[in-house]
């Protein structure tokens, strides 16, 4: 085979990362969990949240977003998928072999990010669809029914944006975790960093003013992609929030690549 007939080096690196992912039990387990746990969590929460709106009055709960609450588990699993893609190799020392095979280190990092993104995107979207389909009947049982809560139109823009956006958010977090783990080099540090920067702003916001800031300008903003209605406690537009989280992801990835090129690779 002549060098010209080989695939481009960038594609070779992606293929190599794909072989690693498919060949290791850990990542396959994580994919299985990503497909099931968010669905179970959504079902559990929704089945225990009765409607408080008086019958007949138009309700203001975001019933679609409520069925997708399992994303809180989904992003944690996505963080694990992204973090282990780099972290496992840092721990075993195999990262040296990866960088020896591909001395242009950004290719290794981007290939890992691509494989983590592709797998979490497909499974993340499937998982959010399943969450809705499983949780919505349970939600009806809790009193979220017409006329207060008419059935969502499954082909409307906001509904599809919430379902697909939940998968996209999972993907962003997997890539964010690839970036953060490349920077800190250890899974055990990276996962808490990713989860804390992502979820803590939303949990700690006590006043409306802080809530407004966290929904607009922290990594937590991305969850607004799930919003399908207008509510007084929704402070960021769906795409605004998503783009903010995407920006944090980009910054993490760029910082990771620039660091990876400059520093010495440590033996395990």
């Amino acid at each position: 085979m002549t060098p010209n007939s080989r695939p481009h080096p960038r594609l070779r690196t992606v293929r190599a990362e794909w072989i690693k992912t498919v060949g290791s039990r850990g990542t396959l387990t994580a994919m299985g969990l990503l497909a099931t746990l968010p669905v179970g969590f959504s079902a559990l929460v929704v089945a225990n949240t009765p409607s408080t709106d008086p019958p007949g009055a138009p309700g203001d709960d975001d019933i679609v977003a409520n069925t997708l609450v399992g994303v809180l588990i989904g992003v944690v699993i996505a963080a694990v998928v992204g973090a282990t893609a780099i972290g496992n190799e840092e721990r075993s020392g195999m990262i040296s072999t990866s960088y020896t095979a591909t001395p242009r280190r950004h290719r290794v990092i981007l290939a890992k990010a691509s494989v983590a993104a592709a797998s979490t995107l497909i499974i993340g979207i499937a998982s959010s669809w399943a969450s809705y389909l499983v949780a919505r009947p349970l939600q009806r049982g809790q009193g979220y029914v017409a006329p207060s809560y008419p059935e969502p139109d499954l082909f409307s823009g906001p509904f599809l944006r919430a379902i697909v956006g939940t998968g996209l958010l999972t993907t962003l977090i997997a890539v964010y975790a690839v970036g953060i783990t490349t920077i800190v080099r250890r899974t055990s540090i990276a996962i808490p960093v990713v989860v804390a920067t992502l979820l803590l702003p939303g949990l700690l916001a006590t006043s409306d003013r802080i809530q407004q800031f966290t929904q607009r300008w922290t990594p937590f903003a991305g969850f607004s992609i799930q919003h399908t209605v207008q509510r007084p406690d929704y402070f960021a537009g769906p795409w605004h929030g998503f783009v903010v989280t995407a920006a944090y992801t980009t910054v993490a990835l760029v910082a990771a690549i620039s660091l990876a090129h400059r520093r010495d690779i440590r033996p395990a």
Partner: protein
Amino acid sequence: MAVPTVPAMRSNLPQPGLTFEALTKRFGTVVALDDVTFTVPPGTVTALVGPNGSGKTTSMRIALGLASPSAGRVLVAGQLYRHLDAPLTRIGSLLDATAVNPGLTGRTHLRWLAAAGGIRAARVDALLEQVGLGTAARRRVGGYSLGMKQRLGVAAALLGDPPILILDEPMNGLDPEGMVWFRRLARNLRDEGRAVLVSSHLMRELEGIADRVVVIHRGRIAADASIASLLMGSPDAADRPSLEDVYLRVVTSPEEVRP
């Protein structure tokens, strides 16, 4: 008049082997490598010998572009590692045989490496047989013995059929049968004209394999000579010293020994 084109052309050719040029590496105030210069020419097995922590692994990691030198450089067939196109086909390396994700099978490990290096996947199974891992190929590396990991590491180094090889302590953990296997392999690689650099902290391991010995001690080259001249250079030529004796003499009184 004859124009002397041949010498002029030859000087422009890249050096085919591996060249360490005035390599210095500092970690903070610690000087790990101090002006290390030596070459690994084709068709020889060059042994890099020194006590633990003497700088063997650090020089190899710099050669492979994994660490950057504070001064100097290493040229692989005349080029810096990071400028190599398809590096696995130019230089093969075994640094730390245990540095493999334990969840991968031996075969999967070689398959991803072949994919990354643009190497035919068919070579993977042939190599696994060649290094004696045919039956263990589909088992996870986490369950391999150190000797089996060394064999897998050697297979990874040979994957791209490279003309230059860097093997860091490849005999660690090999059983006697493995030792015999590796010695034969090293001699074959030399006879095929490859440039082979093998490190060890045990001089005895290298007897019968190495053509040249580079002794590194506290980050400096303490000796760089052919096996024959090292043994000849003994003060009491009456009884031939073992390599071990010569090595101990060199590292205890670090005077330069040159061929």
